[in-house]
């Protein structure tokens, strides 16, 4: 009745297809893989931090970094010139267009799934969702490989994220990101009551621990261990001097204004503060890109948040001399259809989309790959999510050729075993 195949069939067929896919990757355009792998060890000595800007809901490539002027598909979004000769952006990102010489644009991104959750998971972890384990997100890998720079601060912070972030996945709970819901409010509930001395606080904690002994003896497991870890981390954070890094009100009026009056802009500012204070990786999320309706009416305001926040972040990092050791990544889970639908929106389009890299290890002004004349398929140099993430891993100096074992015995690589994109990496 229900169309089950036999389990054995499925596994073997799947295996064969996966192996075939692996062979196909092997003949991709990036031929000087060996050189890059050697160069990675040089990068690993650099003290790189990473800021990931995650556009949730799937950012339209045609209306941002890959316009198709003159085509019907373009709708009412106009194209503008950028600082890079011959490269056009959409009118909605003028400030980024003005610093395009600092950006490497990947216009031939391609992915397999048009479902938000799965595609975002793939973008964050470099692996498709499977039943038995959760894979670590890039920030946790970075933290695991590079360690923290500031002991009193968490190594990985998420700004404005929903609840379904893969976090540390199967890595140790100590690589779990610390989420900050609202960058303006920073980390909340950190003011201990004035009457509560350090000693009294410890006393309460120790009381809780002693009462918990019987329960912990009866119940052991990764979930409980994770909570034990979080209690330790929270206690350490409260006792340390790092909390100020979470407070953007310490910035000047001028700086606050420059980043724009949007949650995302403030998130970018918080990211800069945190990285400056020694946080290894910050991921800032900007949602609201899932524009199935009225895309041309809504695009301006949404893209402006991105344009102001990201361009200011790059300018600020540069002015502080931090850009050469900070990698800034703009990613989204997939693109949107060139064809405008009956509701004046664009639907999901995994075949091609755009992502952007800047800062540490990245060749500014580079454009990698292109979509076809309609913005429908990648023309050449198609870049998979694994290749994109391995490029991040390379620029951040992570050991991406090394094989790690997950608790279930499966082998994993940082970035998913792709090859870094040589054309946009500084040699």
């Amino acid at each position, binding site marked *: 009745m229900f169309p089950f195949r036999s389990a054995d069939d499925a596994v073997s067929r799947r295996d064969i297809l996966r192996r075939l896919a692996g062979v196909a990757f092997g003949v991709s355009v990036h031929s000087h893989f060996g050189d890059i792998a050697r160069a990675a060890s040089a990068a690993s000595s650099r003290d790189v931090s990473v800021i990931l800007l995650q556009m949730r809901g799937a950012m339209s490539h045609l209306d941002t970094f890959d316009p198709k002027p003159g085509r019907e598909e373009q709708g009412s979004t106009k194209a503008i010139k950028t600082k890079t000769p011959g490269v056009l952006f959409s009118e909605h990102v003028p400030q980024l267009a003005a610093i395009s010489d600092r950006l490497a644009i990947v216009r031939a991104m391609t992915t397999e799934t048009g479902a938000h959750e799965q595609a975002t998971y793939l973008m964050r972890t470099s692996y498709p969702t499977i039943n*038995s384990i959760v894979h670590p997100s890039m920030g946790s890998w970075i933290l695991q490989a590079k360690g923290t720079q500031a002991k009193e601060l968490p190594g990985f912070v998420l700004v404005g994220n929903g609840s379904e972030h893969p976090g540390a996945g199967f890595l140790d709970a100590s690589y779990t990101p610390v989420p900050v*819901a609202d960058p303006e409010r920073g980390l909340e509930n950190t003011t201990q009551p004035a009457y509560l001395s350090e000693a009294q606080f410890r006393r309460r904690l120790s009381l809780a621990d002693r009462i918990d002994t019987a329960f912990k003896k009866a119940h052991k497991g990764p979930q409980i261990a994770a909570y034990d870890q979080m209690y330790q981390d929270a206690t350490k*954070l409260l006792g340390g001097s790092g909390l100020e890094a979470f407070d953007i009100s310490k910035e000047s009026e001028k700086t606050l204004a420059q980043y724009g009056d949007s949650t995302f802009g403030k998130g970018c500012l918080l990211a800069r503060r945190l990285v400056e204070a020694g946080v290894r990786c910050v991921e800032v999320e900007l949602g609201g890109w899932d524009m199935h309706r009225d895309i041309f009416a809504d695009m301006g305001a949404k893209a402006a948040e991105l344009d102001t926040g990201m361009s200011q972040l790059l300018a600020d990092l540069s002015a502080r001399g931090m850009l050469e050791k900070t990698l800034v990544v703009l990613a989204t889970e997939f693109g949107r259809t060139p064809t405008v639908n009956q509701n004046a929106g664009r639907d999901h389009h995994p075949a091609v989309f755009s992502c952007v890299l800047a800062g540490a290890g990245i060749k500014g002004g580079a454009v990698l790959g292109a979509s076809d004349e309609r913005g429908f398929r990648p023309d050449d140099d198609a870049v998979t999510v694994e290749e994109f993430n391995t490029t991040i891993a390379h620029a951040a100096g992570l050991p991406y050729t090394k094989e790690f074992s997950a608790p279930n015995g499966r082998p994993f690589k940082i970035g998913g075993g792709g090859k870094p994109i040589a054309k946009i990496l500084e040699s």
Partner: protein
Amino acid sequence: MRNRSASCRFGRCLVLGCVAVVVMVCFAGRADAQRPGQKAGQKKPPKSNLPAAVIARPTKPAMKVAPLAGTSRADVDKAAAAIDRLLEAHWKEHDVATSPRLNDQQFLRRVFLDLAGRIPSLVEAQLFLDPATRDRAALVDALLQSPDYVSHFYNYWADILRLVDRPQPQLVFEPYLFYVKEAIRTNKPYDEWVFEMLSADGVLWENPAVGFQLRDAGMPLPYVDNTVRVLLGTQIGCAQCHDHPFDDWTQHQFYELAAFTSGTKNRGGGPKEIGKSPQKLIQEARKELERPTAFLRYINANTTRVTYKDTPLRLPHDYQYDDDSPKAVVTPKVLWGDVPTSARDADLRQQFAAWVVSHDNRQFARTIANRMWKKVMGRGLVEPVDDFQSGNPAAIPELLEHLTDEMQRLNFDLREFVRILVATEAYQRRAVAEDPASGVPYRFPAPTLRRMTAEQLWDSIVTLVAYNAWAVQRPTTAEVATLASVDFQTATFATAYKQFEKFNEEFGPGRHMRSLQKTVGYKGQLLVRASELPSPLPLGHFLRQFGQSDRESIEGGRTVATVPQILTMFNGPITHSMLERGSVIYDNVLAAIPRGPDQVTTVIFVSLLSRPPSLSERKLAREEIATAATPAAGYGNLIWALLNTREFIFIQ
């Protein structure tokens, strides 16, 4: 007590508003006031900082819940025993170590959390733990007929169905959310409920079941994907764009299925149904109002009507496979089996709905049986519960088939099904911390050890604070209809605008929150059941912090540990609310103080952990109380400590 009160007052002078001190001051102050010889009411106790509506004793139940089916207890036990036999055979075959049976305190706590979504109150715990009234089955039956059951299962479905107040600006979803709550309250058979939602027509407040179809309004293909995923546990989403190389489904099959519902429309009913006046109102609004958007949305809500007419569906223009040509019209075809004979003359959407819920479509029963099993046991026999496929077989196939039979035998009475599951021996065993990453298959020796969901944690803490956790409830369909519905035949711009303003006052998101804050707000938190709060909540809210879904992705709720959660438990407003004068636990501790520190310790342990302290814990508590600045400060520390144990947030 007497000589200690002086230092308490001293404490008050020093630091007002701090957790332990509030307790300390309040407890000591009230204990002082109740000294023997002093008449009660001689001196009015200071006002509580908690909202009056929350600490007022409720006079009637929050709602009337449908009574249980008349199944005898013997029959429930018989059905449970059949499940236990299958499990035991499986354990024997695979040499599975069994888990010890839960004691009564542990059972009490688990069954409250699993069925009522919260820990038991002190009184409820005392009642059950009294040997004279101790009866597991009676407790289960009482919980299944309580408003708490409705609240808890509403939260469960809200996570699956992505229940939000405004999925799109013109979709006023309160009536649909209320409809889901009502379906649980009246225990509507699941197959009927689903059929209603899949085939409903009309405007939201006239026929709120249309909400299911409107959740993906304007996205007919994702609607099919989501519907099949939620109701049939099958993921065909990839096939929307291409044949998936690793999966069963082709793009052609996806379109064949989508052809059943592609004639669903949701915008405008056409001038015949709603008259011509919306256009006139819209023109006037554009002329009269500087910012007409909100009003136009309000009018839009009135023209959002689900209608259906069979309409051919064509393949995409870039269809790339050899089995058909681009833009070809597809013939509707279900994924497996057939449309039931009885529905073959109905329109295509009805045919689809009839096929989904048909008894012949075992996958429908199997999916919900597996979901309910997971709800009770912590893990599905098939995981994830929405990814049935050949490469992902059930952990115990014969058990899943048996449960599927049971689901059909019970005619999709989900509550009766749950009643049987919690009567099994397997359910009443101590939870096992399962590690999916270990690679060892889970053979269900007991429920898995789970952290409370965000809602369970919230509602448990609210239980420690509020006498009335239902001071505010979600608006009913009728309440929304009165203000939302515009009669285009009679409305003028002036009357419509006036009504819009009233609607906005009542249901506009910002204003709604402000009025709720006045009634049940405490330091920015609304002290009511999680099910009655606006949805989605802002990212920084306690519930979101502890993993409540944004209700955009299906089953987006999480129970992962983060640092801000701990900071909130240490020092958040909800911890403070628990320790305010007038809270439930405050009053209970206060009442126990005359009976001495050991009694107070017992009250605190039973209130938070649903069990009395062990001998060694009693010793610890004595030490704490004796060495703290005051006994009251010691009680405050003890409450704080219990709240911050793993035992509190995990369900054993």
